[in-house]
């Protein structure tokens, strides 16, 4: 943190203590959350540079700047870093760590020491991932066998790194589950918990249940390379499709690890800036659990073209449509919350509304791919790339930005420059849509993903998309420059600048190490906006 002159220690709250030891050995969930945030944002930038390099290459139909192999390495690193080092940990381990105990009215998570261990295991994990760059991966982030068992890249090293990152993810999820069960403030019943907590609870369950499976899968892959076990080797009776089943048993549920926390943030921001009670609290809360549960039963839709039985295909297709239902329940409830609200458009709200719009596009293009007939046509085209960027970037990253802007005053004790924040938002939204909407069009017209070269008839789409990508990058740079400026010289933030009702706002900004002077007594849900004090629904 940048020191601010003329400031007494007490005003800096939990940030008062200085020196690297006060960070490296801290058991304060707020500091650990901040360390996660900074680490994951660093990887967001690195992953983003790889994305820009890919877009640069795609400016021309022929491979111009890098070899095909280099292109393969770049899209693998872009995918693997964005997924494992940014989007999975950013909201849960970063913002979640900071705000779960605060929203619950607790002094810390249930196991603070385990929390710190989880961060350092994460660091060990990404150091191993970086070590694997001596012979960088070129398999795509999905590590499909048999190629991943044979390529000269450092697959075993990278697998080990991701195993460690997965372990950190499991421990964090476990910590949150226990915290939510055992450390709620007096009077905070399950139905008085903020919806961010419900989202994080569902997320943690997925992390705990799904991650061990991918851990073993990467272990088997590494052992296939090191000891020659034959699980996935068809020459000796193994089955590469089993690898895909194992991989997607984790990697599909994990997209809900990415999206559910963002949905939680949106559920917090929308009522605050509409000055209206959230509509359908229980529907939103339980739809998170429903998504987590059904999300475990749909992994096969990544494998419709891999040669599963027609019955399995049909079942997975049906279940995929089914998971769209609780997702739509959330969207309708947010829109109903907005209806007749006193809406103001501060930057957190802008990002939350953007989330809804982009996520509807990303979400509705999902069933195109879940339907068997259209999936055979669209599989491995840019339509898929566009679809998951609309959900992951248009959804999760917008939710993450909403959370960053919403909670920035609480985390740092500083206000952001609202004008610059809105300029950044406009650049991000325009840049994002120019980049990725064109990919839908290219995909429907048949452009396959993961090639450095393409047919000249896709040239126009790719030039537009690359232009959009650089616009998006500028927007993101402005956004983070604004955060940096806010940190250095933003106006002092009051305890509760948004007049919000959840517990994290009922204490100083930044909070003290203990979070609350006295543990609050909860008598009501946190969404009683816009009406005189009285019993809420």
């Amino acid at each position, binding site marked *: 943190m940048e020191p601010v002159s003329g400031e007494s220690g007490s005003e800096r709250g939990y940030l008062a203590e200085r020196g690297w030891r006060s960070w490296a050995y801290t058991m304060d969930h707020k500091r650990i959350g901040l360390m996660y945030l900074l680490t994951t944002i660093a990887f967001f930038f690195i992953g983003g540079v790889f994305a820009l390099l890919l877009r640069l290459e795609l400016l021309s139909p022929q491979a111009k700047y890098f070899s095909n192999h280099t292109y393969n390495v770049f899209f693998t690193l872009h995918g693997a870093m964005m997924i494992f080092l940014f989007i999975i940990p950013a909201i849960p381990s970063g913002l979640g760590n900071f705000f779960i105990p605060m929203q619950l009215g*607790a*002094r*810390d998570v*249930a*196991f603070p020491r385990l929390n710190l261990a989880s961060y350092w295991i994460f660091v060990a994990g990404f150091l191993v991932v970086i070590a694997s760059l001596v012979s960088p991966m070129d398999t795509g982030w999905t590590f499909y066998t048999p190629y991943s068992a044979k390529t000269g890249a450092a697959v075993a090293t990278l697998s080990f790194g991701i195993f460690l990152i997965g372990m950190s993810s*499991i421990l964090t999820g*476990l*910590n949150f*589950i*226990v915290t939510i*069960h*055992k*450390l*709620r*403030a*007096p*009077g*905070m*019943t399950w139905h008085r918990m903020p919806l961010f907590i419900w989202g994080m609870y569902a997320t943690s369950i997925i992390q*705990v*249940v*799904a*991650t*061990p*499976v991918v*851990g*073993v*899968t990467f*272990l*088997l892959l590494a*052992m296939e390379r090191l*000891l*020659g*076990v*034959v*699980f996935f080797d068809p020459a*000796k*009776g*193994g*089955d590469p499709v*089993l690898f895909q089943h*194992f991989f997607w*048993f984790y990697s599909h549920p994990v997209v809900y690890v990415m999206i559910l926390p963002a949905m939680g943030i949106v559920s917090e921001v929308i009522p605050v800036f509409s000055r209206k009670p959230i509509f359908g609290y229980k529907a939103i809360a339980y739809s998170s659990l429903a998504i987590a549960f059904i999300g475990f039963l749909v992994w096969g839709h990544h494998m419709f073209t891999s040669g599963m039985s027609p019955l399995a295909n049909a079942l997975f297709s049906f279940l995929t449509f089914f998971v769209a239902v609780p997702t739509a329940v959330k969207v309708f409830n947010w829109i109903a919350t907005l209806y007749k609200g006193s809406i103001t458009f501060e930057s957190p709200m802008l990002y939350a509304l953007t989330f809804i719009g982009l996520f509807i596009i990303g979400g509705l293009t999902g069933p195109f791919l879940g339907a068997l007939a259209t999936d055979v046509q669209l599989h491995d085209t840019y339509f898929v790339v566009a679809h998951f960027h609309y959900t992951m970037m248009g959804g999760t990253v917008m939710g993450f930005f909403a959370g960053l802007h919403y909670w920035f005053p609480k985390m740092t004790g500083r206000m952001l420059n609202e004008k610059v924040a809105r300029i950044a938002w406009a650049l991000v939204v325009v840049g994002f849509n120019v980049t990725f909407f064109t990919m839908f069009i290219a995909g429907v017209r048949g452009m396959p993903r993961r090639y450095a070269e393409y047919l000249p008839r896709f040239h126009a789409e790719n030039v537009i998309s690359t232009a959009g990508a650089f616009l998006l990058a500028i927007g993101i740079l402005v956004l983070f420059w604004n955060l940096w400026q806010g940190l250095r010289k933003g106006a002092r933030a009051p305890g509760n600048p948004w007049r919000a009702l959840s517990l994290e706002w009922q204490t100083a900004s930044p909070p003290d190490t203990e979070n609350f002077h006295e*543990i609050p007594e909860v008598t009501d849900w946190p969404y009683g906006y816009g009406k005189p004090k009285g019993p809420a629904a």
Partner: protein
Amino acid sequence: MSAPQDGHNDPAVAFEAAKLGVWTFLATEVLLFGALFTAYTVYRAKFPELFQAEHLKLNRILGTLNTVVLLTSSLTVVLGVDAIRRGKARLLQLYYGATVLLGGAFLCVKYIEWTEEFHHGLFPDTNIFFSLYFMMTGLHGIHVFLGMCVLTYVVVLAGRGRLSADYTTPVEMSGLYWHFVDLVWIYLLPLLYLIG
């Protein structure tokens, strides 16, 4: 139910939290082994004759001996938990020490088995049955070793006088973990040694 004021300092809440944490952790362990059990199911259904023929090459006598060793170690763990609940830290050390020794005996027998198999030219890359056998027993062996480390730590804690009838959390939690490791073996034995 919500936590009383200052949940962290309340020993009852801390115990409940630890218990929920360990059970959740065991759930992740079930999933970890679950993937291997799934692979086992898939391949056994695909190659029934291979599994029948290959499993006869395993040493059933040593496998059974190891089962007896591990079941006995679960008994000593239970006796250890019972001891500390009655406040007898010295007795706990004895029982948990015995458990660690039994765990060590298990690993020694496993070492003998693996050596024998290597001598007969049976390796992880021999075929899918032995891939499964070495991965499952290997992963289980690692868990036994980690369990021994945890139990040793509990013995040390007891030696420092940190455990009593009022504070049994580390004893009970490490005991739960040891039972789980035991239970995995109870499934491994029939699946690998007793196909018939």
